[in-house]
């Protein structure tokens, strides 16, 4: 751990990353951008896990393990999402999120 | 296994066997055989019942069998019969067996048709023997659900609309019923056992709330005015055997339930609200009869006639005395038989002439003597001709209704009695237009005569109509013996 960097610094960074992701998710139309935004949010959460585990329960490792899971799941999710996006692109020749409404009820 | 449960097990077994039969002729024979056995068992039940009553057994329900099903909620599989239930079982058995014969010529999805039909029958049998409200409700749903398939798949005309309308209205009614049943459950000390509930005397406030719910909930199935509109459309679209079973038996679930559950379990509210529901029923009687006058489709005529006759059942119940109750139960049986024959005959006519419009037929008495004569006899039964079952039932209801000299009761009673004229008008109109007169179309000259399974089906139901009409006493005493506790319950309104 680098000296002089406290828990609040890290949390500030993670919060910034989360809201950057959130902002991107709400404003962007491009599916890839949405995906990147989601990844940013997930990573900010992962960062939180690590930081809280490190500073609050130094003896435990659950937080680290959870983060590992998160990374694995995020990777799988990205793979799936990319697959969906590609198949959409093949169908509609577009990856604009607003044009996709086949989920409508 | 006790004999009553056999009534549910036999149809279930028949259905199970039918799943594995490929040959269509075999399917018919097995279905007929299964229902024949069922009828025999019903006769045994009747015989046992009459014998034990004869030997002095005065308990309210006989052949009871109690078996805890779901302990924590106090749900039992509790069956037993009294005279009314026995009569209803006989009716069901006869109509179901006749329905199997009448549907002999169904060609597509024969097996599935018979399976649905028999599942429906299972529900009906189960309903009539249940003494536990939960089991009763379960069987009720078992009986109602196959209707959707039977009409939606094997129906004619706007069948999807009709099936959907019927199912939705009946489901709406079921929802009301479920609330009422749960209300009864909680306000009578967490029991579904009807006998216990009857003796528990629910608080009047709860009765006032749940009685109309239960009565109307069952009333919808019994085509209580103004909740009858599913029935003309439903009957018109349903295949013959389904119309038979539905009008003949299934609608009696509604009237029987309204009597057994709503009135018997909540007597005080029934007494309080009797005038209102009596008025509703009297309006239904005359309204259905007038409705039938204007129709030209045979099935619609019969459906409206059913509204009128079923209105008479509710009317009899609400007259609140033993004679009228007897009449109401007799009318359930009488109407069940009559309307079953009617629908059977309409099916036969439709199969030959390919129309149900009375204006297009004419002179059929000459070409189809068997069908026409049976139609006339049943028409006469329906307009209350002495010597046939309708007369016996109607006279009990009318005499019962006149035992209350209250002016408003008199007005309703006279209204209901005057339906005998209107009924004569629409029955004779149909007979005159369709069976008599000159033959309207050349191709009607050589319509095929009735075949054996049609004759068996029609006679199976026609003969009881005559038997009841000529010698009503055995049936009347069967019913009246069991009315005592109900009369007791309803006449001791403590409020």
């Amino acid at each position, binding site marked *: 751990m680098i000296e002089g960097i406290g828990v609040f610094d890290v949390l500030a960074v993670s919060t910034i990353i989360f809201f950057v992701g*959130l902002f991107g*998710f*709400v404003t962007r*139309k491009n599916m890839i951008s*949405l995906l990147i935004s989601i990844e940013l949010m997930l990573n900010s959460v992962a960062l939180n896990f690590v930081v809280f585990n490190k500073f609050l329960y130094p003896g435990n490792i659950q937080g680290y393990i959870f983060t590992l899971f998160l990374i694995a799941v995020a990777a799988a999710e990205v793979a799936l999402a990319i697959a969906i996006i590609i198949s959409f692109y093949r169908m509609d020749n577009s990856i604009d*999120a*607003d044009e*996709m*409404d*086949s*989920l*409508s*009820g | 296994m006790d004999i009553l449960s056999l009534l549910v097990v036999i149809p279930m077994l028949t259905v199970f066997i039918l799943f594995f039969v490929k040959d269509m002729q075999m399917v018919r024979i097995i279905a007929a055989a299964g229902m024949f056995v069922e009828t025999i068992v019903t006769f045994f039940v009747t015989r046992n019942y009459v014998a034990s009553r004869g030997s002095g057994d005065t308990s309210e329900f006989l052949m009871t069998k109690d078996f805890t099903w779901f302990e924590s909620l106090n749900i039992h599989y509790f069956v037993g019969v009294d005279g009314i239930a026995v009569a209803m079982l006989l009716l069901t058995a006869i109509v179901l067996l006749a329905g199997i014969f009448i549907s002999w010529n169904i060609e597509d999805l024969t097996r599935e048709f018979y399976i649905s039909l028999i599942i429906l029958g299972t529900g009906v049998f189960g309903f009539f023997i249940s003494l536990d409200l939960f089991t009763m409700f379960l069987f009720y749903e078992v009986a109602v659900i196959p209707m959707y398939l039977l009409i939606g798949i094997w129906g004619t005309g706007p069948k999807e609309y009709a099936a959907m*309308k019927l199912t*939705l*209205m009946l489901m709406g009614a079921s929802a009301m019923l479920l609330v009422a049943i749960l209300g009864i459950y909680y306000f009578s000390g967490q029991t579904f056992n009807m006998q216990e509930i009857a003796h528990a005397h629910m608080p009047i406030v709860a009765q006032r709330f749940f009685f109309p719910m239960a009565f109307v909930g069952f009333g919808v199935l019994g085509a209580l005015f*103004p*909740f*009858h*509109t*599913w029935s003309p459309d439903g009957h018109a679209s349903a295949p013959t055997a389904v119309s038979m079973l539905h009008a003949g038996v299934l609608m009696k679930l509604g009237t029987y339930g309204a009597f057994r559950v709503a009135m018997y379990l909540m007597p005080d509210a029934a007494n309080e609200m009797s005038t209102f529901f009596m008025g509703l029923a009297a309006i239904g009687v005359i*309204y259905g009869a*007038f*409705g039938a*006058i*204007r*129709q030209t489709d045979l099935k619609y005529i019969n459906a409206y006639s059913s509204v009128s006759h079923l209105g008479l059942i509710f009317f009899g119940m609400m007259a609140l005395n033993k004679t009228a109750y007897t009449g109401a139960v007799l009318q359930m049986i009488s109407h069940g038989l009559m309307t079953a024959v009617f629908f059977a005959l309409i099916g036969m006519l439709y199969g030959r002439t390919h129309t149900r419009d009375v204006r297009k037929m004419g*002179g059929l008495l*000459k070409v189809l003597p068997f069908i026409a004569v049976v139609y006339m006899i049943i028409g*006469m039964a329906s307009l*209350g*001709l*002495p*010597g046939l079952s309708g*007369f*016996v039932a109607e*006279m*009990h209801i*009318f*005499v*019962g209704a*006149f*035992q209350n*000299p209250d002016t408003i009761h008199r007005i309703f009673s*006279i209204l209901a*009695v005057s339906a*005998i*004229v209107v009924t*004569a*008008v629409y029955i*004779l109109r149909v007979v*005159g237009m369709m*069976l*008599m*007169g*000159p*033959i309207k179309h050349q191709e009607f000259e050589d319509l095929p005569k009735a075949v054996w399974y049609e004759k068996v089906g029609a006679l199976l139901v026609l003969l009881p109509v005559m038997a009841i009409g000529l010698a*009503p*006493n055995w049936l*009347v005493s069967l019913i009246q013996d069991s009315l005592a506790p109900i009369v007791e319950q309803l006449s001791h309104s403590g409020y």
Partner: protein
Amino acid sequence: MDFKFTIWILILPTLVFLFTGLLGKKMPAKISGWIGTASMATAMLLAYKTAYEYFFQVGFVDGIRPTIFAYKEVWMKFTDTLVFDMGILIDPISVLMLVVVTTVSFLVHLYSIGYMHGDQGYYKFFSFLSLFSVSMLALVVATNIFQIYFFWELVGVSSYLLIGFYYDKPSAVSAAKKAFIVTRFADLGFLIGILLLSFHAGTFDFMTLVSEDGPLLAQTAPPVFMGLSIFGVALSLIFVGGAGKSAMFPLHIWLPDAMEGPTPVSALIHAATMVVAGVYLVARLFPAFQGVDGGAVLHLVAWTGAISSLFAAIIAMTQDDIKRVLAYSTMSQIGYMMLALGVSGMEGHHGLGYMASMFHLFTHAMFKALLFLGAGSVIHAVHSNLMKDMGGLRKYMPITHITFLIACLAISGVPPFSGFFSKDEILAAAFEQNKILFAIEYAVAGLTAFYMFRIYFGIFWGKETVYKHTPHESPLTMSLPLLILAIATVFIGFIPFGHFVTADRALYDIHIDPMMAGASVGVGLIGILVAYILYKKESTLADGVSEMFGQGYTWAKDKFYMDEVYQFFAHKMMFAGVAAPVAWIDKNIVDGFMNGIGWITETFSMMLEDWQSGRVRQYAFSFILGLLVIIFAVLYLNGIIDFKG
């Protein structure tokens, strides 16, 4: 004397009905006819045996004729006290009716063997005749008002089947329907009357209803409707039923149309037996009619009878169809019987009307059956119902001619034929009771003679008609009944009827008042004379007379437009005024309401559909928004933040 054998009078026709109805098709046609006739002959002999034993062997008990129950079994129990019995009651009027019904029925059976010869529905015809006979016989021996109602409906349905016997003729079908529905409408009154009695009198049993200390006569109930007590109302309603069956004004419209049926049926059902059921019903309940509300209901009976008889006689003078003339004549004569009951009292001489009514019922059954069978014989020969197709038939059909003449003389009240005796008694009874009623009936007697001889001269004399086929006398099976009935018509008037049937059931000797007899014969002869002048020879005189009456003649010829009035009520009021609106309401309002519920549900779901756009970003936005709301709500509720600042 237990009269157990009387049950066979009912069983025999029942068996024939079932046998010919079910198996008649498979047998040679003749057999069903002869079986029916034979069984009816046996029933007739049994009825005579009953009459003989009842009137001569049982005789009087304590000065009055007793009531005997040959059978009385509970058929249906409404309550412990309200019981629907079936049984056989033997008393003077039921024995009288047994004799009348079996005799006419037997003769009609015999006649039909010839008349219906070669008809397709031969076996069916005899089957229906038997059904009718058994229903009618069971009706007249009823022990209980509900038993009467039971068989009342059954005779109604046999009448329906027989009127509509030629069911491929639309006019026959509609006449049958009309007869059934009109009488059914009247029966509604009957039924409501019975039901009212069931509550207020608490019994259906005739003996209790008419007994001195029974609920009707012993109690005095307060008036409830137009000065009548509830019993009066009930009896009036029961009388409405009787009036419908007996074709009394204004419920008569079905009777002329009922002539669409085969002529033997008209003779049996619509002349001799079924149509007098209403008279029989009033006679059966006579002590009650007489005692309740001081006999107020009897005034209704008397006036209905008088109006009907006058009304029918006027119409009968103008009709051209001989069966219709006879139908109106039947209505008119039944009016006489009703009137006679209406003016009658109970004891001795006051009971003259009752006795006269039953006597007239008896004689009328014979001569009216004879008239109908004679008319049938004529129709059989010339193949037409209309008087304009007939004329000069006396040369071709001597037996028919003579027998018809006898019947015409009888109905016109010429001595020594039977009608004279009974009609004279009726006029005498009316004279003592009410002069206006007497005047009406006196006029009707003249009109009766006129219209009967109008058709007699029209058929057998009048113009010399050229026939396509030369008419010939009917076969023996048809002429024999005519002869038998003619003999009866000549002689039965001499029966000392007061020895057998009287209101109080005691012995009564009929006295013929020469003044009254002279007056009534005189008016009859005047009627005959007028008919002779107008119709004996073909002349324009008759047309001149009818022109003299101008509009009145047209009205009478069009039956005073009663049919149109009914048409208006039935079609305009019931169909257009009630049934059509009901159908409309059902389709649009009641069903519309149910469909409306469905529509609301569907519309609501449509509205929600817009929320489910399928756009992921929109979902995410809502999700975040929702999350924020929840977070703030939780914070606020836990008091962590406060919006008030």
